[in-house]
């Protein structure tokens, strides 16, 4: 979330799209109802289904799954053509006025630089035009046909209400009514917040859907504003934290990135990531990259890392392919290219697409290690459970180890909620039996490996033998030690420009501004610096006071970065540093104090006066929000609608007859998985998977109370489709895709209605995902038997939310 849960109450309009927070985040959703009750806000939901979020919405529309860019792209065109944008904001705080290179173009659904053989783009032309001074060229009149604003206008001019209607299935009347309500938020003192979740990420165009939302918010002037923002409602209690800590194939902690194989030179690696301003005088905070990087290397390697050896740059693995994501890994595993695999609190047999392929892949491993509090399906993938898991154990040669871990109630530490708050928790009891915390398991396992390397030698032992490990009990590192380590400390005395000591050696650092690139500081995750300072554990703070009445409780827990609660909050004030309106006052420039002050920690250099001309988006080299993504996305600088890889509609209506532009042209799909895509004739219905209020993923089927209130697997089918296939509520149905099937009880409902797409009627089939073959609920089928093995072009997040099925009476 750029903003936070309580801040939703400051919104004047709430757009819920690609998510269903009333059911998936019920307590957070109370701040939506608070805004409706006490801020006269309206809630608009746009979803394929009538959800419980939609049930309390003032306005709603039903959209065909996977077509959100069409709706939002049309909205962008509407805002521009009717001149309902926050003009001062757009001109100063976005790249609307910057000029784009001549050779950038878009034709037949493809951006310039496409190479069909590699399904990728040469992104060279996706750049601003640079002037002789080395900075991006600009046209403040917004009239230059090559400026971002005019290119944006041209790009979305194709997204007319009729076109949007024919793609999304929403009637033109409904489209225009909702666009009008959203456009009313372009005035400076009104804001819309956008709430989304996995209903946006789990598409082959997922990242671009979210970008379209961010572009809408920039045009409306809603980024950095209380009650505004683009708010990802994340799916797990600490999925934000694990992302922040970089537990993803290409990342290091704090959104730093591993080098690829071509990046052999340390200086070139650093320079590429050290973003210098591309507009004169801007902050461009990533210019400090080396400080963050060296502080990480000092944390991990201590004295072994020094300037002379490039801080052990070569000790970190380098990437030979763009991503070693889970789809790539299971593709390789299915071909026998992996020997070992660890699942720490993760249940891939249930959670990954095309379950048949996942079973095949796991069966080819030599060893599998499952660390979990629960007996997951993955840990028993080799065990026959009849039709629920139809395998022959004797034919599966994988050695499987299952290690019992603690759950939350037995664990101490911090987790990061969707609002970036690090909240500390304490253990209430010991775990059952001989279960152990993950920290201890990783500690012991590492020490055993280190002993083996010490005793036997082995390949490239350097990072193993030199890894810092100064824990009180080496085999059992404690949460407080680890939290202090990722916060960071001074390794030597730090001094200011006059030579005064500002930080003694050994002291905890108060913020990442103290980090240095010369090896005098250590920090395991620079964005978390400030969470455990000399003043103690800031994550355990419990002051819930709200002195400005904005819902901003700075004394409760600690938020990264630097305890800021709303990102880009400098944009809540105009160019002169005054709030856009009295109702939206959040931080502002105080000329007497010579500082930015207000309800939040300014996301800006505190003493940089408005007259200095620094702009609010300090992480961007231009200082402004990007309507034009430049080279940061792999599939285009402007989002474009492409059909899901499995779609009930045979072509992309924006590009009829252009087969290359039917699906995302830059999305990776393996040959075998392309063969496993269904055709509309055989699998005619759009299907989507989702969560229910009473369950959390595949966990709560192990909890008795949740199993009682929602005991049995079902699928939701609209009345029209039910009568077409001759079933009534309570009948058993078989839902099949090209890859597998599930059987479940049919809930025949008015919540799903057929929609007209072009000349065809499309039904949606709703598939809740919570059942499996372990747990105390009734046994059920893993729904990812159905889903396709293809992911978002940028992130490789699988396309669980849009695929096709057929439904038969059992």
């Amino acid at each position: 979330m750029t903003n936070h849960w309580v801040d939703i109450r400051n919104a004047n309009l709430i757009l819920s799209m690609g998510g269903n927070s009333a059911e998936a985040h019920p307590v957070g959703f109370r701040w939506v109802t608070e805004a409706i009750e006490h801020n006269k806000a309206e809630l608009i939901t746009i979803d394929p289904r009538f959800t419980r979020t939609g049930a309390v919405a003032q306005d709603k529309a039903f959209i065909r799954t996977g077509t959100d860019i069409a709706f939002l792209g049309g909205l962008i065109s509407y805002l521009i053509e009717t001149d309902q944008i926050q003009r001062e904001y757009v001109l100063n705080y976005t790249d609307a006025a910057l000029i784009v290179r001549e050779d950038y173009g878009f034709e037949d659904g493809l951006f310039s630089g496409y190479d069909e053989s590699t399904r990728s783009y040469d992104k060279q032309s996706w750049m601003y035009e640079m002037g002789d001074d080395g900075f991006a060229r600009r046209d403040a009149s917004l009239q230059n046909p090559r400026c971002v604003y005019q290119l944006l206008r041209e790009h979305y001019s194709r997204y007319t209400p009729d076109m949007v209607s024919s793609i999304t299935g929403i009637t033109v009347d409904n489209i225009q009514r909702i666009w009008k309500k959203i456009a009313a938020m372009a005035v400076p003192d009104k804001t819309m917040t956008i709430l989304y979740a996995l209903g946006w990420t789990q598409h082959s165009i997922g990242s671009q859907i979210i970008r379209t939302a961010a572009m809408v918010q920039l045009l409306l002037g809603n980024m950095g504003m209380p009650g505004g923002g683009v708010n990802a409602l994340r799916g797990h209690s600490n999925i934000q934290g694990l992302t922040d800590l970089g537990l993803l194939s290409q990342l290091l902690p704090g959104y730093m990135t591993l080098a690829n194989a071509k990046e052999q030179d340390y200086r070139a690696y650093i320079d590429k990531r050290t973003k210098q301003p591309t507009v004169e005088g801007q902050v461009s905070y990533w210019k400090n990259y080396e400080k963050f990087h060296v502080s990480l290397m000092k944390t991990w390697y201590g004295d072994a890392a020094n300037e002379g050896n490039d801080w052990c740059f070569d000790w970190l693995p380098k990437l030979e392919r763009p991503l070693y994501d889970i789809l790539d890994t299971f593709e390789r595993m299915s071909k026998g290219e992996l020997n070992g695999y660890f699942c720490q609190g993760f249940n891939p047999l249930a959670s990954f697409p095309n379950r048949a392929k996942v079973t095949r892949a796991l069966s080819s491993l030599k060893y599998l290690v499952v660390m979990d509090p629960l007996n997951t399906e993955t840990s028993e993938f080799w065990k026959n459970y009849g039709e629920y898991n139809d395998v022959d154990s004797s034919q599966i040669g994988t050695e499987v180890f299952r290690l019992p871990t603690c759950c939350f109630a037995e664990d101490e530490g911090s987790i990061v909620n969707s609002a970036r708050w690090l909240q500390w928790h304490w253990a209430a009891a010991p775990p059952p039996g001989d279960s152990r915390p993950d920290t201890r398991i990783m500690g012991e396992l590492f020490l055993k490996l280190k002993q083996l390397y010490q005793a036997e030698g082995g390949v490239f032992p350097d990072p193993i033998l030199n890894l810092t490990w100064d824990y009180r009990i080496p085999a059992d590192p404690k949460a407080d030690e680890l939290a202090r380590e990722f916060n960071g400390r001074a390794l030597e005395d730090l001094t200011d420009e006059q030579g005064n000591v500002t930080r003694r050696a050994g002291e905890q650092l108060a913020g990442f501004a103290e980090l240095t690139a010369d090896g005098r500081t250590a920090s395991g995750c620079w964005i978390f610096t400030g969470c455990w300072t000399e003043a103690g554990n800031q994550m355990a703070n419990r002051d819930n006071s709200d002195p400005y009445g904005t819902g901003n409780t700075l004394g409760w827990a600690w938020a990264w970065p630097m305890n800021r609660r709303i990102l880009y909050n400098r944009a809540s004030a105009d160019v002169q540093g005054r709030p856009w309106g009295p109702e939206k006052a959040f931080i502002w420039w105080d000329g007497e104090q010579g500082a930015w002050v207000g309800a939040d920690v300014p996301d800006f250099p505190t003493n940089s006066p408005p007259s200095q001309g620094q702009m609010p988006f300090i992480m961007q080299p231009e200082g402004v929000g990007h309507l034009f993504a430049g080279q940061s996305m792999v599939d285009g600088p402007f989002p474009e609608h492409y059909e899901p890889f499995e779609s009930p509609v045979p072509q992309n209506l924006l590009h009829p007859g252009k087969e290359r532009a039917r699906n995302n042209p830059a999305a990776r799909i393996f040959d075998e998985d392309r063969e496993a895509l269904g055709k509309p004739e055989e699998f005619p219905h759009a299907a989507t998977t989702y969560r229910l209020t009473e369950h959390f993923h595949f966990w709560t089927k192990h909890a008795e109370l949740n199993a009682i209130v929602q005991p049995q697997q079902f699928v939701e089918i609209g009345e029209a489709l039910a009568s077409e296939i001759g079933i009534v509520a309570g009948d058993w149905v078989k839902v099949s895709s090209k890859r597998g099937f599930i059987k479940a009880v049919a809930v025949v409902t008015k919540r799903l209605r057929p929609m007209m797409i072009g000349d065809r009627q499309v039904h949606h089939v709703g598939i809740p995902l919570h059942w499996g073959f372990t747990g105390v609920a009734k046994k059920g089928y893993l729904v990812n038997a159905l889903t396709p093995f293809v992911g978002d072009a940028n992130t490789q997040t699988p396309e669980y939310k849009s695929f096709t099925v057929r439904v038969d009476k059992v």
Partner: protein
Amino acid sequence: MSINVTRRQFFKLGGAGLASSSLAMMGFAPEPAEASIRQFKLTHAKETRNTCTYCSVGCGILIYSKGDGSKNVEQNVFHIEGDPDHPVSRGSLCPKGAGLLDFVHSKGRLEYPQVREAGSSEWTRISWDEALNRIARHMKDDRDANFVQRTAQGETVNHWTTTGFLAASGSSNEAGYITHKVVRNLGMVAFDNQARV
């Protein structure tokens, strides 16, 4: 018997069950008050602050356990409720979170390390030492056999692609951090958490 109940204690009682909510209906107020005959069940409980483990709202919870923390006394969790001081959740829990206690005591909780040998159709209980020794042996054998120091083009990569690791987005930052520190320094690159899906 007359007791003094502070406002905070009153709300704790109020969240605790039917007995206290019916008292509230009779106009029971947080001032000198008549106590129920039975000792209130949370009175001697240890209260521990924690955060709900399910979605990302991060609702504050209070875990109540029996046992006074003294030596040879094991705490046993018997009640979980929302933390009324929490600025987001203000004491609420949703239908998922309302079942947290049953997650803690689920029949599906694992208790001992186990191994399923190749081709077998059952689990065998083993010690932690045996489990970790065997796992470490597998890892080292695979790493030593398949670790790539240089590509065919002579580029230094120092990576290990034949063992992969999925980390848990339900675990704490501290577990995540040490996991990253260990996994990356073994050279692993096939490394993701639930954020990937």
